[in-house]
């Protein structure tokens, strides 16, 4: 079978951008009968600038808070026009999803539209120059948390599961097969689906672009970013860890945590482990 190429090469994201790599895999799985919506964010770079676009499928640059709202209209119109087979996909950042776009997302999920919403989480507002979002992890430097972020990130996945979303998955650009499987699963869901993709960002996280894969992988291997899916409320961890890597390796690999003391790092690392076991416990519930 010929591989479907849905995204051109030579796109102007930063070197080592996991968001872009993941998008290539995502569109390959989704195929040509797909409409992509991207808000203002780094993913808008894929949708294009001026006369150029990256996608070979139709795409629309929405407003920041509104991917899910536009998607609702696109979906319902396609259905009434007899084009129910077309995938409607939002590819939005953490800011456009957890912060300003939360209302539209929650509304679209409650209404039950057949929408695939993929949130690539680079843990800050990167396109505007690295400002904190509610997905920014505790302790991380951003330009609006110059002393490190106080308080933990918003548990968007827990919120959406509590809302009763039929399919939710976490994923990582460093575990791409797992992500691809989850995109394929989302395509079969008769209702809304949400994939929360951890997306390492060398520019915003302050690490060498050659290290993207390793940094993303460390987050999973340390138990900081647990790979799982929730089908109709039932949890399944898709990557179980025999033992957890020391989470301090993850923190020390990135410049955004470099102001933290050893003690602070240890405390964050301990929390990370608790987080992993809390998800595993949900699987066994």
């Amino acid at each position, binding site marked *: 079978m010929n591989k479907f190429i849905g995204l051109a090469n030579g796109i102007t994201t930063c070197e080592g951008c996991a968001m872009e790599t993941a998008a290539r895999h995502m569109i390959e799985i989704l195929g040509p009968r797909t409409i992509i919506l991207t808000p203002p964010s780094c993913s*808008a770079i894929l949708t294009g600038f*001026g006369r150029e676009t990256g996608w070979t499928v*139709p795409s629309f640059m929405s407003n920041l808070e*509104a991917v899910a709202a536009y998607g609702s209209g696109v979906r319902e119109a396609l259905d009434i*026009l007899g084009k129910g087979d077309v995938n409607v996909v939002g590819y939005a950042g953490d800011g456009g999803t957890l912060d300003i776009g939360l209302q539209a997302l929650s509304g679209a999920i409650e*209404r039950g539209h057949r929408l695939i919403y993929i949130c690539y989480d680079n843990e800050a507002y990167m396109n505007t120059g690295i400002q904190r979002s509610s997905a920014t992890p505790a302790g991380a430097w951003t330009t609006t948390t110059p002393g490190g972020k106080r308080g933990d990130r918003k548990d968007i996945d827990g919120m959406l599961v509590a809302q009763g979303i039929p399919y939710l998955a976490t994923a990582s650009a460093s575990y791409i097969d797992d992500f691809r499987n989850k995109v394929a699963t989302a395509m079969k869901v008769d209702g809304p689906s949400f994939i929360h993709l951890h997306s390492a960002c060398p520019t915003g996280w302050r690490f060498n672009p050659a290290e993207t894969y390793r940094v993303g992988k460390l987050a999973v291997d340390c138990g900081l970013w647990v790979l799982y899916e929730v089908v109709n409320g039932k949890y399944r961890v898709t990557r179980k860890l025999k033992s957890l890597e020391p989470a301090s390796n993850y923190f020390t690999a990135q410049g955004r945590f470099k102001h933290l003391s050893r003690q602070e790092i240890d405390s964050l690392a301990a929390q990370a482990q608790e987080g992993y076991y809390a998800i595993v416990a949900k699987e066994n519930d």
Partner: protein
Amino acid sequence: MKMTAMNGNDAAAAGARMARVQVVAAYPITPQTPIVENLATAIDKGDLKANYINVESEHSALCATVGASLVGARAFTATASAGLALMHEITGVAAGCRQPIVMPVVNRAIPSPWSLWCDHSDIMGERDQGWIQLFAETCQEALDFVILSYRLAEDKRVQLPVMIGIDGFFLSHITEPVAVPSQEQVDAYLPPREPHNLVLDVDNPLAINTLTPPGLFTEIKYQHKQAMENAAVVMGKVFASFAAAFGRKYSVVKKYKTEDADIVFVAMGTMAGTGRDAVDALRSKGHKVGMLRIISFRPFPTEAVQDALKEAEKVIVLDRSAGLGSTPPLALEVSRAVPDKSFTSCVAGLGGRDVTIATYEQALSVTGKTGVNWLDLKEGE
């Protein structure tokens, strides 16, 4: 033609039903709510084959409407006041992406302070967003304007969304006899939408609304300006074909006893009806006055206004929005159209205050007074 008793909201909803809209996304707000209830019921009963999206806000209502329109559906929404203000970000997208959406705006004052009642401050906040704006005066027009607006909006040369101003309560909740056309007549007048230009279609992929550099932005805006100019021409043709199909004639302005008038009042919406009564009352007292109602505020019918006012010595404009910090919007437009006339700007009817014959009498009494004259103002309140 069948006559039915209907209020303005039900008439607008009937227009949308007969236009066979395919997607409705709307959020309730007084005094627009009955429109969305009416359509939700029609869809639920199977009287209208459409998908109804119970959005969680007006912002999402317009996004979903734009989304539906982008894939080629005939899409409809309606709102008022704070709801329209919440949509503001997306009214720019709907127009800039040239989507032929029709949206009644059931005019209600913009807070603060809170008011449930009619004025035009809501829709005036959108006047430069690139939508066509029509103002209805009767329930019949509420129905007819929805139908003809789709024909206008979807015209290849236009491709622009339309807002239809329906005065809150004064029109939305007033029952009048309405000639309801047959579905066959409407179908003959308004064929199914044929989407043009900016369409999301997997068989003809396009990236829409991308980041646009300074080297292209102006030209895209210029096309939008041309579309607005085309709209002025196409609107005339649409009114003519509507008259041929349904027997009711509309135009961009409506004149009443302007031909021999020394002084002409100018207003929009339901207060123009009162204005015609005021003209009769004032003429019986020897004042040679006339009434000019503006129906199309965008595009603004400069030539039609000049023509209607060519015999008048004096012009008195009654705005139903405050226009703080400068001249109110309708006065601004009319004074620009006829710069050489003696000109009086008045504000009346804010936040649901009645505009009566006495209001027009007061307007006449301030003829020639400079500045903005607030009518029916209670001193000492």
